[in-house]
């Protein structure tokens, strides 16, 4: 197994608040890696640092061996490292199919190809992926009119449409109807196994993340608290304490 993302000693502070201190983690190619931690422990900050949303104070971030901590968001996304947002972001005034077609991987197109119309195959692929997340019936509805959970599914489908190498998911199950969560876990796992996309997931729902991830990192107060397999993390007293506030 090769390391696809290597975060080495990354620190980031906002004003005087240290959101991340000297964090080092690794994400293995082809696997599912989890990131947990209590509210305000710096998980989303770390995600934002990786995707280039803000400059980091110190440390290094490598993607497929290439240093990316100096690159802006678009350049990193064009390497195939994609993220979804905690507060879902979709193009609300367009319908689902249009949302999907916009998410075509433009990084793989030349300018000449960008000046062509989408082919039948592109449409089929968009509809296939909408079917995959269970939004086929609603594909011609304004996406802004969908429920929050459905919008999350749409955002996930859009990310798949972009054919990423790695997908960073920020709380994919938050706000989703509990009865649908099992279906979502299943789809995430299939995205990983069938499409070969490496997943790196922030998740609050312990049952979900323990069920999926092969390796989990736990943050607390902006520092790396523990790392290991789901069983190791479950048995780690420090993690239990962090969640119960005893830390």
């Amino acid at each position, binding site marked *: 197994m090769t390391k696809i993302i290597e975060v080495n000693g990354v620190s980031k502070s906002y004003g005087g608040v240290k959101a991340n201190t000297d964090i080092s983690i690794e994400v293995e190619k082809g696997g599912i890696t989890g990131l947990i931690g209590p509210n305000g422990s710096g998980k989303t900050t770390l995600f934002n640092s990786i*995707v280039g949303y803000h400059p980091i104070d110190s440390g290094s971030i490598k993607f497929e061996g290439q240093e990316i901590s100096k690159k*802006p*968001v*678009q350049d990193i*996304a*064009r390497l195939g490292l*994609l*993220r979804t*947002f905690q507060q879902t*972001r*979709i*193009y*609300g*005034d*367009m*319908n689902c*199919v*249009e949302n999907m*077609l*916009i*998410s*075509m*991987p*433009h*990084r793989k*197109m030349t*300018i000449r*190809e*960008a*000046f*062509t*119309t*989408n082919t*039948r195959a592109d*449409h*089929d692929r968009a*509809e296939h992926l909408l079917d995959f997340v269970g939004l*086929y*019936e*609603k*594909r*011609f*509805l*304004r996406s802004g009119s969908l429920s929050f959970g459905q919008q999350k599914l749409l955002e996930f489908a*859009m*990310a798949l449409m*972009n054919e990423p190498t790695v997908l960073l998911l920020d709380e994919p199950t938050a706000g989703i109807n509990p009865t649908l969560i099992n279906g979502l876990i299943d789809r995430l796992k299939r995205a990983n196994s069938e499409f070969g996309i490496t997943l790196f997931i922030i998740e609050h729902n312990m049952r979900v993340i323990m069920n999926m991830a092969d390796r989990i990192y736990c943050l607390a107060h902006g520092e790396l608290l523990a790392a290991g397999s789901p069983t190791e993390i479950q048995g780690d007293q420090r993690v239990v304490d962090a969640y119960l506030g005893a830390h």
Partner: protein
Amino acid sequence: MTILRPIFYLALLAFIIAAPFIAPDFRTQLATLWIFIILSMTWDMTGGQMGYNSLGNILFYGAGMYIAAVVGISIAYNVGEYTNAAGGGIYKFTDTQYFLGMALGLIAAGVLCAGIAWVLGYLLFGLRGPYFAIGTLGAAIAAGELVSNWEWVGGGQGIALPVFPGDDYENAKLFFYYLFAVTGVVLFIFLRWFYTTRFAAAINAIRDDEEKAEAMGLHTLRYKLITWSIAAFFVGIAGGISGYQLIHFEPLETAFQTINLGIFMVVCVLLGGKGTLWGPIIGAILFHVVKEVTWNYLLGWQWVALGALIVITVVYFQDGLMGWLARVKPEWFGERVTEKPALAGEPAE
């Protein structure tokens, strides 16, 4: 529906060709209408489709006017001496010089304006929303002020171009009408195709959520530069033609007319409906007709009425005609629930 469409376009084309003969007294007004249509359609490329509301597109109109004029003169004479004489009438152009100069001038106007948009875009596309609007407005005002201090191109006096060859002025009117019409029709055909491409989908994404578009790996700056440059290309040509049609123009009131034409095009697009193919055209026709009909009855208050029209349009009717239709009849715009058994998967229009 599908059979009706070509018939509709053919009828429209026939009407465009016949229009100056149907209403021979209004040839100049019809030519002006084309300026409105071209400027509105190009404004909508960035304003409506990409979400970048420029208040300074008039810069390309003025720049196009000057570039076309300077190139047109320079093939026969020294520009500095020509403008120095300020229309003394001693400079004669042969027919070949006139038309060749105009043709080269228009090409140069289009290409150089696209270049200006590309360079200016590097500076201005880092600005979002109101900052972009104010920044472009500032650029247009600055351009006008600088040109009016530039003696080589005639300073505040502007430039007097040669008159259209021949004695029959109706010929000139027809010539410029058709020149504008061809530019407009080419622009329409181009946009009709352009808005179906993946590229256009990408600029729509920039309009709806630029941060998301960046996170999805779109090369946003490049797409914005290309779009604005294409718009500037057509505006530059329209400006160049206007210069030759007007014969004499000066920098602040004619070429870089920030608060007149510069703001008209925005109002036209808002009236018709932002972000649609037909909205800007319908808006331009509506605005131009209302303006021409009421202008002379307002006795000096027309500019006040214009300001009021802008305010009323913006405050009460911002979605425009097409936006209003989309709200009343969403199914006309393809919104529907489709059941799964129809798995034929017809592509969305």
